[in-house]
């Protein structure tokens, strides 16, 4: 049953997977916009790109979980035939380690393998599973502390990631031939990441193939034989690693530098800033009328810092007419949208106490407020009574903006609010924020896009849950931000 890992069955040149002109659209979002790539045994493909460039979507298309709306995916099966679809992908030996953890927290480590390996049945399956996962863990992460009997929910984030990676490389009825790793090192510390990288090298040397996605450019350089750079659903550069320099990569990824001076309206930084109105234990601070940016890679504690601050400043006993802070959510489904409400109701929620007379909502006032914001911010709908979900993502986001800005809160907290917002709207929103700031409001603005962060008066860069740099004035530039967010030697500063 157990075969050697990564046995190269087919000729080295025949690609395991071939993607031709694959397209995936989620509504108006073009997550993949005509991507073609192949990967052959022995190759390690590094895939990089900004947040939302379409990397994870490409992974889902390659492993068969997502059927592209256009284009083709073909797998070379072990017996030489061509195939497509989830079952063939599995039969071809394609394994994925997803970006969001996809283990079941209630299972043990060895049981988790059962969900992925269909052949684990019958008497003694636990022994087999235990053997497979223990072997893989020992091989990839020598010296690890994980017992196969531990419950996943009790492992640390890093340990869970290690389990997923090990499961991806573990033996099975069909040995792993292509392992896709979507940001596998984001929660691993440097030493363990190093173990993984060297395992990838051995795996590829033995004829296995790997797709490696990471924001840690140093790692990608270490491990990839070829690097593809994605941007807005397309591959904009694809060369052997040796032909890239790190600076060249950043140039390829970054797209702000040229527009920066133009985007930054003259005088915006010169607004007279008032007294300091907030200071948090972790070191965030802001003055009246200041736009404070939070930067760094996704998931390094910015959102948590914002939520903590918001919770500490907003009342529990009643919704007040003059709230201290208002919140603009970025993860709309989780933090913002009331899915069964109309646009109108979604828009007025935070400002509602001021529209209420003896407990009853002043519906005409509500309508006036909504109509006012609709024209101010350009919500594209013919009727504010339509369901919020009938709007495109960008327009939904505008509604959430309006919800916060309509209130009189002196501080507005924004948790990556520009997700899925088109360029034109973004410009409008930037203008709006600048105007509000000029009017004396302060903004705490977390963004995954450097372009936006560069518009701020002051920037805090986060790494591993802590502030790693505070930039002001001319120090706010892409190089400095990247340098402070990436753990990278020799780049930037």
């Amino acid at each position, binding site marked *: 049953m157990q075969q050697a890992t990564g046995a190269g069955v087919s000729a080295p040149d025949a690609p395991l997977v071939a993607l031709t002109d694959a397209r995936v659209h989620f509504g108006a979002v073009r997550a993949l916009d005509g991507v073609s790539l192949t990967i052959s045994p022995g190759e390690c493909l590094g895939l990089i790109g900004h947040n939302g460039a379409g990397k994870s979507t490409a992974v889902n298309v390659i492993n068969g979980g997502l059927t592209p709306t256009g284009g083709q995916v073909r797998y070379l099966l072990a017996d030489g035939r061509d195939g497509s679809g989830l079952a063939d992908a599995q039969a071809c030996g394609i394994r994925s380690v997803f970006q969001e953890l996809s283990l*079941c927290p209630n*299972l043990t480590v060895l049981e988790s393998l059962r969900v992925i390996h269909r052949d684990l049945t019958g008497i003694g399956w636990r022994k087999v599973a235990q053997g497979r996962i223990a072997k893989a863990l020992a091989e990839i992460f020598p010296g690890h502390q994980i017992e196969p009997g531990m419950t996943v929910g009790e492992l640390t984030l890093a340990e869970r990631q290690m389990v997923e990676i090990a499961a991806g490389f573990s033996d099975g009825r069909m040995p792993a031939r292509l392992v896709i790793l979507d940001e596998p090192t984001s929660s691993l510390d440097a030493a363990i990441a190093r173990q993984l990288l060297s395992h990838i090298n051995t795996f590829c040397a033995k004829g296995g193939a790997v797709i490696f996605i990471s924001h840690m450019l140093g790692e990608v350089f270490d491990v990839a034989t070829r690097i593809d750079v994605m941007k807005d659903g397309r591959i904009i550069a694809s060369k052997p690693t040796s032909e890239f320099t790190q600076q060249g990569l950043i140039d390829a990824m970054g797209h702000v530098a040229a527009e920066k001076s133009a985007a930054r309206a003259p005088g915006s930084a010169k607004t007279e800033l008032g007294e300091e109105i907030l200071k948090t234990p972790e070191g965030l601070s802001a003055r009246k009328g200041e736009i404070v940016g939070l930067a760094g890679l996704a998931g390094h504690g910015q959102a948590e810092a914002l939520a903590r601050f918001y919770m500490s400043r907003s009342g529990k006993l009643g919704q007040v007419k003059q709230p201290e802070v208002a919140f603009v959510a970025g993860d709309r489904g989780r933090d913002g949208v009331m899915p069964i409400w109309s646009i109108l109701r979604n828009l007025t929620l935070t400002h509602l106490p001021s529209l209420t007379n003896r407990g009853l909502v002043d519906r005409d006032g509500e309508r006036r407020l909504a109509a006012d914001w609709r024209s101010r911010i350009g919500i594209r709908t013919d009727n504010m009574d339509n369901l919020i979900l009938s709007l495109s993502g960008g327009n939904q986001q505008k509604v959430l903006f309006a919800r916060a800005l309509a209130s009189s809160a002196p501080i507005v907290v924004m948790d990556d609010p520009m997700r899925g917002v088109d360029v034109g709207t973004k410009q409008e929103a930037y203008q709006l924020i600048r105007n509000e700031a000029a009017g004396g409001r302060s903004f705490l603005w977390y963004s995954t896009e450097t372009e936006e962060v560069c518009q701020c008066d002051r920037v805090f860069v986060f790494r591993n849950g802590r502030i790693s740099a505070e930039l002001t004035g001319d120090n706010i530039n892409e190089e400095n931000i990247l340098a402070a967010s990436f753990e990278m030697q020799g780049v930037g500063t």
Partner: protein
Amino acid sequence: MNGKYRILLPVLSLAFLLAAVFYLQPRAMSYFGLNLLFNLAVPIALATIAQMMIMMVNDIDLSIGTFVSFVACVTATFLHDTPVLGVAILLAAILAYAGLGALIHIRQLPAIVVTLGMSFVWGGLAVLLLPSPGGTAPVWIRSLMTVKPPLVPMAVVACVLIAGISHFLIMRSSTGTLLRAVGGNAQAVARSGWSVAKLKAGAYALAGFFGVLSGVCLVGLTTSADANIALRYTLLSIAGVILGGGEFTGGKISPVGAVIGALTLALAGSFLSFMRLSPDWQIGAQGAILILVLAVRLLFSRRNRKWKEAAQNG
């Protein structure tokens, strides 16, 4: 709550109650006494396991009590008079359960409402079968439930068997693992290419199966059935699963804990009766015991969380 310690609290509660009962009524500390204390807990334990199967996939079953009553009526009538037809009806009932599971998943219906509706349906069928209490337990089940094994009384043997078998089925077997995975992260299961609808149907079928066992055992103990005989099993079974360390979501369940939870509830009744409380307060005391045990659970999970946070920061 920590998986390893999940079982600790139910075991402690049961041990504590058992000690109290033995103290109040030393006679209970015998072969005969243990059997009397626990034999009626056997069908409750089975119903609790059935409820656990549903809670394992993040649903809840409000019809298990009337379902067990229905099964009891079938057992005391058809299974006794025409065994083949009786078995066929019970099999059909299990299939109906499986169908409900699939329906709930595919049509995205709220399980709580569908099972509420089903509770009326099973209750109606039971009343149609037995308008007045009666029927006779099949001889084989009667003798099975009154068998006197050496050393350990039947009730204890049965509970250990139920706990053991369901533990094996759910916690050890490969299929059980998949079923629990549905409760833990249905999306991940679907992403690996499994049909969640089929798995849910399987979980519901298991619930139906244990519900059938519960009804059959109940009739074996009581010798006859009536249409209202097990109505309170619905709430008892939910409470049993929770007392046993299970949770409403996340596939976090423990079959051994569920059996112990059921035994704890049964024992709580005996304990209150040995306490000679005034009849006025006998009902309220049951509520108080439930609240007490669940409040202790909170202390456990709080402490656990603190400890974990400290460990992570340190």
